[in-house]
């Protein structure tokens, strides 16, 4: 069979993997942003106990590899009776990892707001909540956009690690096909193109977005 035929025959399978990669990434990113925002707000408002728990979570999650986190969820937890299917494990793992990255992104944005802005706000008598609502958050979110954009790309790439718990996403599809038919060149080519189709347009869009929101940053 010619290379082209090999590729053509594999496309329906790759399409499934492609859709699954997109879907898992989407859920993972949304979840990560929510978890990250919660952790960051807990830190910002110095909520007792909860903010310390969030800080410990962020350090554990940021300093361990996703693969080990997934192994833990998928192989170690069932021993104690928590049996989850692979895809759910994948999403939970991705959110566990991404939550801390997003939290750091938001923290960086909030910390980056110029001290003069905060002091001016205090000087005109804003309460802590008002200061957050009208001064720190609008500017801080804008400042955190580049970090969040980088995290989004990073998390999509991390979904390739799901292959270790046999979720049939893009990478797993390619590795399975290579294992069955030994046509590594063809399948790897489709695999790289698959990621390029997702990531190249997305990184262009995110770069444009960063440029746009930069107008919103002032006082720095």
């Amino acid at each position, binding site marked *: 069979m010619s290379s082209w035929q090999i590729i053509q025959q594999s496309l329906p399978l790759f399409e499934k993997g492609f859709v699954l990669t997109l879907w898992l990434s989407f859920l993972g990113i949304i979840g990560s942003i929510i978890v990250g925002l919660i952790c960051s707000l807990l830190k910002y408002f110095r909520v007792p106990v909860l903010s310390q728990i969030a800080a410990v979570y962020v*350090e*554990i999650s*940021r*300093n*361990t*590899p*996703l*693969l*080990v*986190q997934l*192994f*833990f969820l998928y*192989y*170690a*937890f069932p*021993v*104690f009776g928590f049996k989850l299917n692979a895809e759910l494990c994948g999403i939970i793992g991705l959110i566990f990892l991404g939550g801390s990255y997003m939290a750091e992104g938001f923290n960086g944005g909030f*910390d*980056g707001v*110029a*001290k003069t802005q905060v002091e001016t706000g205090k000087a005109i008598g804003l309460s802590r909540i008002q200061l957050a609502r009208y001064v720190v958050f609008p500017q801080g979110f804008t400042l955190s956009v580049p970090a969040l954009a980088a995290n989004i*790309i990073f998390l999509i*790439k*991390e979904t*390739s*690690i799901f*292959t*270790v718990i046999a979720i049939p996403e893009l*990478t797993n599809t*390619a*590795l399975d096909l*290579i294992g069955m038919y030994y046509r*590594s*060149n063809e399948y*790897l080519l489709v*695999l*790289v193109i698959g*990621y*390029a189709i997702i*990531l*190249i347009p997305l*990184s262009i869009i995110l770069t444009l977005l960063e440029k746009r929101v930069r107008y919103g940053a002032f006082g720095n």
Partner: protein
Amino acid sequence: MAHSGINVLFEGRNLIRLFGGLWTTVEIAAVALVLGLILGVILGVLRTFPNRLLRLVLRLYLEFFRIVPTVVLLFLFYYILPKQLGVNMPANQVATLVFALWTAAEMSDIVRGALISVPKHQRESGMAIGLNRLQLYRYVLIPQAVSLELPATINLVTRVIKTTSLLMLISVMDVINVGQQVVEANNQKYPTGVFWVYGIIFVMYFAIDYPLSWWAKRMDKKRLERANG
């Protein structure tokens, strides 16, 4: 409990084997980092040169390594080097090569960013006192860029160390691969051993990466405080 899971770690040579696997992991990460950081500094400097073609080529190199997930990079090199180029390397070396090239790509962007953010008057003053390009980089730009880039570089190091967890995918006997073997060999006797084996691997990675990222964070914080006066 006679067969508490944690004892799986002390059975036979299990713990020594796990640390042996960790050593393989650390060795690959260390060699790749040394090679990658040096190459990355060179590429980063080249990317600040005015030559457009050179900049384009290096930019494409960076984007390729940025777009393709590391898992895929490993497999690309693992399959294509022997098949298309006739290069037969053991998996350890393939992994070292991939990590070094990837580190170089990321590092080149960090170095470039730091070099262009050195104030312009520094470069101009250097040229005014008659430094040539090599001297300008050696005595003016690189020393100042280093302090700007250090936290980002340390974060890159922690990322590379975390990414070594992928080594098992191309059958390198790294700490996770050894862990899997220990789990499989002792599954009958210690059904909860899996928790402890992956648990200690979790702790190992954390113990290496946490001090590094703490250091990077502290430097960043200090710089922010300085910037804010």
